[in-house]
């Protein structure tokens, strides 16, 4: 086969690849695949022409963005979807803010301490505690509130890492991935956020609170009990 030949002849060849089962499962469980996983990204890029119609039959779009990442967007009933929790959203948006700053270019990381400080700067301590966990009331004890907020942020980070938005590194460092740009999407095009949100809701990228779809609160409860 010459280098100009397409890498895969048909869908059967794609599915027969060793990487397919793992990547298929990762995409279906909501993971984003970016260029920091070069082999996986290349595989999806090569196979996209066959995988897009394949996933459409399951009611999902295989999306490749100009920011350099793939993800599976559920648009029908066949592939279940979940909404990110408010904690995951706030943490993801704040990390996306870091991703847009030149200061993170040098290392591509931020520390957990920096993230918490920025969240407090943006929201204020009291709003932050409520925002991170809506069942939790802001407590008078400052140190207790800070500890709980930290635990909520760490929990959100773990789930964002499972979705391919960040890498959790040693010494409380967080590696920023290109998929964080998904959090920027609602503010990217129009200055009017509501207008942009309506477009994203129609596309199936974003959900609003009044929709029937459930967020991941059940998992929160389980973890809280644990």
């Amino acid at each position: 086969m010459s280098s100009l030949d397409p890498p895969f002849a048909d869908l059967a060849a794609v599915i027969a690849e060793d990487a397919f089962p793992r990547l298929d499962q990762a995409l279906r469980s909501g993971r984003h695949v970016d260029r920091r996983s070069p082999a996986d990204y290349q595989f999806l890029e090569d196979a996209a022409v066959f995988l897009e119609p394949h996933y459409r039959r399951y009611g999902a779009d295989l999306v490749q963005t100009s920011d350099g990442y793939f993800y599976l967007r559920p648009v029908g009933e066949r592939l279940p979807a979940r909404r990110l929790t408010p904690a995951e959203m706030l943490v993801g948006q704040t990390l996306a803010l870091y991703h847009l700053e030149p200061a993170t270019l040098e290392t591509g990381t931020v520390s957990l301490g920096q993230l918490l400080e920025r969240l407090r700067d943006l929201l204020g301590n009291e709003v932050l505690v409520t925002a991170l966990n809506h069942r939790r009331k802001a407590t008078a004890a400052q140190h207790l509130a800070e500890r709980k907020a930290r635990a909520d942020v760490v929990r959100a980070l773990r789930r964002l890492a499972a979705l391919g938005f960040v890498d959790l590194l040693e010494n409380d460092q967080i590696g920023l991935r290109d998929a964080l740009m998904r959090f920027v999407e609602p503010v990217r095009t129009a200055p009017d956020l509501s207008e942009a949100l309506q477009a994203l809701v129609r596309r199936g990228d974003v959900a609003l609170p009044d929709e029937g779809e459930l967020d991941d609160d059940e998992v929160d409860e389980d973890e809280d009990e644990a």
Partner: protein
Amino acid sequence: MSRPDHHRTLARLAARGAHLRIDTAEICCLAAMHLQAEAGGSMLFGEEALADLFEATLAAVIPSDNPRKRATHAIERLRAQGLVVRIDAAGMVKAGEYALSTLAQAVVGRFLHNEALTRASLDGLLGSVIRGLSEVLVAAQEAAGGGDTEAWRDRVRGPLEVVVSELLSGVERRQLGLDESQRAIRAEITRLLEADWLDALGGIEGLLDETADTLTELKGLLLQHATRAHGLLDEVRVLAQEHGRIETLVAVRRTGEQLDRLLAWGRSRHAAWSEYHRAVHRFLRDVVRLDPDRQLSNRLRQAIGEWPKHRYTLRVAQAPRLTVLPPPSRVVAQPAVRRVRQEYTPVDAAPPAAPPVDLAGLVDLALADGADRLSAVLARVLPQVPPEARYGMVGRVAALVAHRSRRTVGARWIAVPEVALEVTDWTLWEEDA
């Protein structure tokens, strides 16, 4: 050096309290000595000349009232730490001559000379390594022909351990310099972006491409020279092996490891810079060019700050995990644990002595006298029993009591002093007729 030797060396250093304390002014004085020696051609300083030099330097960098006194103190401190050394053999009475120690030269070199790895320095150093190794190979071939132990030691192992190793160390030192300059370039790129944003594009792209080109060149040179050097080392190794020269083999192995370290460094820095290069280009393309006014960051910051006004959330796929059945396991019949049956031989033991008293009668008497607890019955009956038999009687008394009256088992443990034990007390009452 073996690991225990390391421990001993470190322990000795710690015990001596080895330390270095040099402040900025003292570093400037050392640098002034170095620069003057370079300009004047002599490394030696008379006592008076040294004091004048220090005084002038200190007056220039940190003005104070009494620079002469500070100069004298600085000379004392640097001498005490072995940075400035007296190199004449004269006694204390006569004025001496001073120079920078090798330690001080290294300190000054660190601040004055930027030993970064360039194409020219790498080519020159590795070219010398190849020439050195070629000479070592010729010497090894001659030593192999003559079988001379001294020739192996002086002309093969010696140059390998000293000349080649020192040259490779020179490359390693310059690698550290290049690492430092790369860190500086990264910091400069960040500074340019923070200061000028869109206007910084041209300068940043130039810095990125220049560094990438340098690293690609260095990587290619390293690979080319290291391959040739490994070939020469292999030939030396074969000759040393044939003649059983263990120490030469060790020196060959160490030099080979040093070469491998250089290659690994080249590969890792090239890969790291490629990743950084990609990240910066992505940033310039997706963020800087598309958002020249930094509106994106401002809008995102505003959206976060207005929480919970806009409570939208991203949707992600969440397919249930596939149920993976466990692999079928073969049922293995577990043999029963058995042992050879042995005949039981009873141990001779004295038969329990028959109660010497009428226990049932005593229990009846105690109950008739109104004892309403097991502990009370025991307190009445046991004193009538010989002391050595009391312990064994407790159970029998309890059995008789249980047989004769109804009882409630309490949770309280109560002491029975006659037998030095505790029993769970029972509350007793008579059977209904």
